[in-house]
């Protein structure tokens, strides 16, 4: 069975190592990006099956990346799981605030996970989204 490809994006080294470890041990082909730019380059080169994305990255961070992903016809249907350090309600609030000024509102991500990320929950979420 071919390995599914998961692309993860996080500016923190430790988080990237952690995600890589969990994903690869579970049998995914995992690759990491340090920022939005790297993530887009990688995704365009080799579209992944799922994207795991930290949302609070410095400078052009999660928002820019998410918008670019949804704008690109080759990438917009890839499931995106957002890693957030602020919990569900604040996250949804942020998304609403964000959508206020966008001509085309962003759809909500396919799921979100709160940091720190529990490996089992992470893997169950990915499995569920990939089997849709």
């Amino acid at each position, binding site marked *: 069975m071919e390995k599914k490809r998961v692309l993860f994006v996080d500016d923190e080294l430790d988080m990237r190592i952690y995600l890589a470890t969990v994903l690869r041990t579970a049998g995914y082909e995992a690759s990491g990006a340090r920022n939005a730019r790297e993530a887009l380059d990688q995704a365009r080169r080799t579209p992944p099956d799922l994207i795991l994305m930290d*949302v*609070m*990255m*410095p*400078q*052009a*961070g*999660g*928002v*820019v990346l998410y918008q670019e992903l949804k704008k690109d016809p080759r990438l917009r249907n890839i499931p995106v799981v957002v890693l*957030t*350090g*602020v*919990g569900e309600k*604040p996250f949804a609030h*942020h998304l609403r*605030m*964000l959508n*206020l*000024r966008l001509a085309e509102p962003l759809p909500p991500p396919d799921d979100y996970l*709160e*940091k*720190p990320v529990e490996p089992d929950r992470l893997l169950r979420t990915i499995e569920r989204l990939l089997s849709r």
Partner: protein
Amino acid sequence: MDTVRIAPDGGLIRDSRPVADEPLRHLGSRVLLDPGFTLRSFFRMIERYPDFARLNVFLPECLELYRACPAGECAAPGIGRLEFYKTVEMSGFPGEPRLEIYHTLCGREGEETCEVRSLPLEQLLDLPLQIGKLKHVVFGDRVDVLEFDTVFNLFEFIEGIVWQLSFHRSPKECALRR
């Protein structure tokens, strides 16, 4: 209503009348800056109303630096104006979600923003100073933020600028050459 203006000469104006004394009672009022207001105007205001100098431990030193600056032409090239704005930002892990509210003084050239932390007072004093908006930083994204009009009070204005200036210590910061 409950608004105080500051003129370019540093004078406070309330209900179209100059404020002669008791400046502290206006600290809670909304502050508006008259056209022509510069960072130098800010220091003129502090000199006019010495009570303000007690608001922050760094103000006396800032005043000393100001007095040592030339009387004019203290403006860095490439910066059109200074802007004082408020930011509301949510922060989370590690730690519980919280909202941070803070003030910043930055340089603006057109729509571009630049930090002024590394610039000495000699390069900032005669730049026009304006009050900006409230930035709602979403997802830590500083490139594309939500902006709203809001109210700044005189205390926030004075204190926020001095907080910023207390970081302007040394002249040049080098680009490391290896």
